[in-house]
């Protein structure tokens, strides 16, 4: 410590103008530094951090995935809803000619927009593919299946539909006539029920995410107790001390959101093929709805926001307890 006579330091009192000049973009710099430092701190303990993010990810993926599944069912049933249809199972004794005549007669009616004939051979073929009983069914000598007519109604008016159904039921060639709307109505009721279930589940899992993040941040606060005390000793405001923990919470939430996104995508990718086959069976152009850009962003944002809120709750409770000694 050999020094020439100490150069006169500047006077201790800074003019207010000078002290104001030190702010400005220093504020932004500080925020960005804190943002990345807190991310670095998460990376410093990769395994525990990953586990926390995984728990959050799974908790977010569950409601997101279920919600998406519901969207798909809704989408599917909407597609069917517009085209109400009646299935006519003809008597075993009715042959091709009679079935064709019946179809022509049906097409005359103005309430009916289309009729599709499914021959017993077609039906058997379809059933064979669907059920996997291919060999056993080939062994059958007679085809046990009847002709089936799928009647597309021109109107969505249920009264007209009901009247038509009653009329068709009285026709001698027809064994069973049934409205395909009935199960659709039940489906809608069920969707409404499941939707409510998903909301309840989502609320519970949101709470779980908040608790997980809150607990993680609480631990971080206690691990850095000494640091917090020293910061307070040198005039750090509560906001300053809170900031890195809030950012850490945000990062955890965001990482959880990313993991949830990956999980949902993976699960729907697994479903893609079976759904395609199923929709072929139903003569449908149905495509599985997955997370689009907007809902992906919403998922990530929800994660980040929950992280922030969880951290806020934890920090608010625990920072007060830490006072410098």
């Amino acid at each position, binding site marked *: *410590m050999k020094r020439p006579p100490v150069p006169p330091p*500047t006077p201790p009192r800074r003019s207010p103008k000078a002290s104001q000049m030190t702010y*400005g973009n220093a504020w932004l710099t*500080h925020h960005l530094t804190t943002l990345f430092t807190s991310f670095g701190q998460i990376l410093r303990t990769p395994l525990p951090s990953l586990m926390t993010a995984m728990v959050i990810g799974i908790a977010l993926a569950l409601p997101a995935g279920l919600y998406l599944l519901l969207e798909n069912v809704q989408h599917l049933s909407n597609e069917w809803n517009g085209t109400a249809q009646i299935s006519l199972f003809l008597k075993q004794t009715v042959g091709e000619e009679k079935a064709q005549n019946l179809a022509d007669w049906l097409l005359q009616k103005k309430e009916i927009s289309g009729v599709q004939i499914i021959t017993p051979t077609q039906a058997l073929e379809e059933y064979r593919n669907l059920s996997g009983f291919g060999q056993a069914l080939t062994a059958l000598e007679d085809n046990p299946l009847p002709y089936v007519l799928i009647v597309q109604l021109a109107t969505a008016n249920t009264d007209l539909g009901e009247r038509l159904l009653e009329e068709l039921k009285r026709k001698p060639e027809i064994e069973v006539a049934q409205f395909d709307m009935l199960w659709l109505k039940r489906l809608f009721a069920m969707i409404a029920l499941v939707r409510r279930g998903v909301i309840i589940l989502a609320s519970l899992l949101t709470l779980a995410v908040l608790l997980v993040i809150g607990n993680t941040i609480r631990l971080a606060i206690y691990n850095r107790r000494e640091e917090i005390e020293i910061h307070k000793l040198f005039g750090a405001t509560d906001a300053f001390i809170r900031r890195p923990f809030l950012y850490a919470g945000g990062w955890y939430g965001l990482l959880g959101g990313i993991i949830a996104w990956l999980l949902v995508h993976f699960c729907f990718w697994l479903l893609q093929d079976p759904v395609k086959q199923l929709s072929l069976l139903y003569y449908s152009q149905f495509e599985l709805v997955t997370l689009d850009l907007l809902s992906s962003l919403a998922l990530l944002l929800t994660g980040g926001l929950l992280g922030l809120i969880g951290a806020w709750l934890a920090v608010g409770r625990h920072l007060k307890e830490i006072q410098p000694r």
Partner: protein
Amino acid sequence: MIIFNNVSKRYPSGYEALKQVNFHLKAGEMAFLTGHSGAGKSTLLRLIALIERNTTGQIVVGGQHLGRLPTHRIPYLRRRIGMIFQDHRLLFDRTVYDNVALPLVIGGFRPPEIRRRVRAALDKVGLLNKEKSYPITLSGGEQQRVGIARAVVNKPPILLADEPTGNLDPNLAKDIMNLFVHFNQVGVTVLVATHAVGLIKHIKCRMLVLQHGGLIGDTHLRMMR
């Protein structure tokens, strides 16, 4: 700058660490606070920075009645006080540079300004070559000097030092004491708590003597001359 008016401090344990202490340290004045171990020196310094609250009496720091200072204003009081702790209180997972920069980061200074000031402060305590080291790799005396650099880096108008020369050899201790005198000469109000009476008797300045929590001596050496 610092006024104590019948100040007492009773710790929650019931122990009365300070009893009816009265003194007035004017702006730009320098004083040593001495007394036996357990006399209450650290307690007195902690009351000034509101690390502890006094039980009775009034404390005024820089014109501010501490009893009337709301909690959210405490950080701004502490930014005007440079504090050197008996147990250093460094951050062991940060470099010397980052430790010294702490008050500036908290105060919202710009990075270039921070770099300039941290270098200057480290230079003053002779540790410029250690800025990238971690405190754990430093000797006790070097750690103490890091603490001193941190206390003066934002040029606070008040400097409180609790046993700043405890771990230093006599020569270094003298250098550090001279450093405080220099700070005082440029207008900083300095209060140094120390055992080392031998070290300070050649420095002409005021001495406050504590004994069992009572202020038993307040000598202006100028008057004694």
